[in-house]
C-alpha cells in the first residue's frame, strides 16, 4: 500500500526526534529551576512516545506500540509528582 521508501522517511523523522532529545538534555543540565528540567524531560518523554511509534512502523514490529502506550499513560505521572514535590517538599503526597 505504501511505498518502501516511506519507512526510510519515518526512520529519518525518528532520528530528528532523537536529535531534539539530545539538544534538550542541555536544558535538563542547565536548569536553572527544577521546573525547567521537568519540562525538558517531559518533552523528551513525548518525543520518546513518537520515536517508539515511528520505529514500530519503520522496523515493522507493531508490538512496539505497546511500549509507546505505556509511556503515553505514565509519563505525565512523573511531571505531576515532581511538580507537587517541589512545592511542598513531599508534604502533599
Amino acid at each position, binding site marked *: *500500500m*505504501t*511505498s518502501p521508501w*516511506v*519507512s526510510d*522517511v*519515518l526512520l529519518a*523523522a525518528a532520528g*530528528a*526526534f532523537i536529535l*531534539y532529545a539530545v*539538544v*534538550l538534555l*542541555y*536544558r535538563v543540565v542547565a536548569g536553572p*529551576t527544577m*521546573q*525547567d528540567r*521537568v*519540562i*525538558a524531560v*517531559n*518533552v523528551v518523554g*513525548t*518525543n520518546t*512516545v*513518537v520515536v517508539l*511509534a*515511528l520505529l*514500530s*512502523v519503520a522496523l515493522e514490529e*507493531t508490538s512496539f*506500540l*505497546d511500549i*509507546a*502506550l505505556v509511556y*503515553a*499513560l505514565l*509519563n*505525565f505521572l512523573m*511531571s*505531576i509528582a*515532581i*511538580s*507537587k514535590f*517541589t*512545592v511542598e517538599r513531599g508534604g502533599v503526597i
Partner: protein
Amino acid sequence: MTTVADAAIVALAVGGVFFGLVAAVGILRLPDLYTRTHAASKSDTLGSVLTLGAVAIALGADLSIMKTVLLLLFLFVTNPTAAHAITRAAHEQGIDPWRVDDEGGGE
C-alpha cells in the same frame, strides 16, 4: 510510485518534525519557565500528534491503528496536564514571570 497515502504520510511527518523543532528551539531559547512551557505544551503536542497521524496512516487498516489513535488521544490529554502541573507548581513556589524590561531575567 507515489500514492496519496505516501504524500500524506510524508507531509504529516515533515509537519511533526517541524513542530518538534519549534518545541526544541523554544525550550532552549525562550527566556523563562512560563514561556518555555508554551513550547512544551503546544508545539510539542501538535508535533507529536501530527507524527502519530503519519504513523496511523502508514499502519493502514489494522488493529494497531487503534493503538495509535489511543496514543494520540492520551498524548493530547496528558501533555497539557503535565505542563499545567509544572507551571502551577512554579507559580505556587513564587517564581515570577519574565518581563521585557527585566534585564537579568533572561538568558
